[in-house]
């Protein structure tokens, strides 16, 4: 093979490689699989924007700078019901220090007629958000109820608690952890 032919062959192979890179990149852009922020300790809490029962909108990222407890619950869930009074008590103790509770009702799986009476009966004063589509539950990989996410002022999840009811003392310790 002559030097010129050999050089052409080399450049042809290099060109083929570059073409492969281009096509591979194009393919992955054509069918992207969205990677969501993980609802796990040490990760940024996945963003959500939900309505309250009174149709006000709450966006998680608007609360950056505050310590947030995101609590996933339903009216038919016994441990959820049991821990609500403790959450209300601790919320009142720490809210002036920048502690916020977002109690997200799994409305897409709940009886909407029961939500308001449930909240009124227990005198809950923190925002009750409604996940009407299940999207938020999906993002937070809800597998069981209750599920609680303690989020620091920087928006990073400090602790995930699966199940309940959470003891008041333990709840206090966790809240103090995210208020630091």
């Amino acid at each position: 093979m002559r030097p010129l032919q050999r050089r052409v062959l080399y450049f042809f192979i290099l060109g083929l490689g570059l073409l492969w890179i281009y096509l591979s990149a194009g393919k992955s852009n054509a069918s992207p699989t969205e990677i969501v922020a993980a609802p796990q300790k040490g990760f940024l809490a996945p963003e959500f924007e939900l309505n309250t029962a009174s149709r006000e909108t709450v966006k998680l990222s608007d609360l950056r700078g505050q310590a947030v407890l995101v609590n996933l619950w339903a009216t038919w869930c016994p441990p959820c019901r049991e821990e609500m009074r403790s959450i209300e008590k601790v919320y009142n103790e720490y809210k002036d220090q920048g502690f916020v509770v977002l109690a997200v009702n799994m409305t897409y799986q709940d009886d909407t007629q029961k939500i308001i009476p449930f909240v009124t009966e227990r005198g809950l004063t923190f925002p009750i958000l409604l996940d009407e589509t299940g999207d938020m539950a999906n993002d937070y990989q809800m597998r069981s109820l209750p599920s609680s996410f303690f989020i620091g002022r920087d928006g990073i999840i400090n602790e995930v608690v699966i199940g309940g009811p959470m003891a008041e003392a333990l709840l206090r310790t966790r809240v103090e952890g995210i208020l630091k």
Partner: protein
Amino acid sequence: MKTPRFILLVGLCILIGYGCTPSSTQTTESIPTEVAATELPIAPTIDFETIDFPKAQSHWLTVGADGNLYLIYGRDHSLFVARSTDGGQTFSEPVLATGDASVHVLPIERPAISVDQAGRVGIAWLEMSPDFNGATVWYASSEDSGQTFKPGQLVATETQGEVAMVQVALDDAGNPVLAWLNGSELKFARSFDQGSTFSETMNIGDGSCECCQPQSVVTGEYIYIAYRSLEPGGDKGDIRDIVMIHSEDGGQTFQLVTRVSDAHWYLPACPIAGPSLATHEGKFYIAWMDGRAEPPGTFSRGDIWLASSQDGGKTFMPNVRINPEQSMHHTLPSVTVGSGGRIHIAWEAQASDTKEAFLYYTSSDDGGQTFAIPQIIADNGDETRGNPSKAVLVIDSMGHVALAWLDRQGVRIATWADRK
């Protein structure tokens, strides 16, 4: 000459090192190598038709003893029933079965329906107290295969408690047998006059998971109820295993519970997932989800398990994991058995690192020892429909398989002919 060789080397490195490596953003492989390694049979791709029931909020599908397929679904505080005589390809116009009753309809609770050999259809439902503390349990029947329903008959009044998950099964004579939950108590009542009057309510189990639907089957004088138990487990949370309770005298007395799951699964939370029960020629098959692979008290994903009993439900064989894939969360299985003994299972799965959700189907020809590689019947690629969930799988005597599920639009039913 050195430069072209260098270029050739770089080119080859690029080809081998980059071009042949899968992109990191590719979809998670749904069939892991573990299954391929065991050389399980690959079922042929299923070619199915679908039919929709828009705006349904809850559903259940059953094959009646008359051989027909019956769908019941909840919508706007009412229950509707539709019948199919062609294996689910077409359904009759849905009939309002609950009159002006205010039915408690919840997506996590499956409406109750059973059909006997004569085509008598029995349904049951709950009506909540105004303060949601307590409820009434109701039964209604149809004598004309679900075309018209009699007015509801009061079965029981629960004056207090979180009442949920009512189930009904008809015996050979068309007498309804009902079970439901009040908190963690498993309640039972039955009729001996085809639903005109009912027995006193019995408490047949004190430790049931409050958010997990039980399932019942009646065979002659034998009544079987599978449910997720709730046992105190100390610091690690409650133990939520699957058990079965049965009666050999038509519900007058119940035997001690039989343990089905060998997991001792600790979870201090509501997993929202009851068992699925099927029976065939005296054998019992129970499928369920649990998260035994994770440390006690944690729960990020579950697996689908199956246990069978060859001695009339007295003992169960060791648990067999059905889903080969072990990174997604698999839950809410539905099991059914065809006339040839083939076991069919469908369930839902959600990816852990993406928003993908699937409905899987598989079958076994060796009594549940091995299963074909699961096939995806539905996914959440269509955002207007969202996640396919709460699968109900049935097969009629002609080998028509029907799989019903719930999504944002309502109920969708896929049907196909079982392979020979």
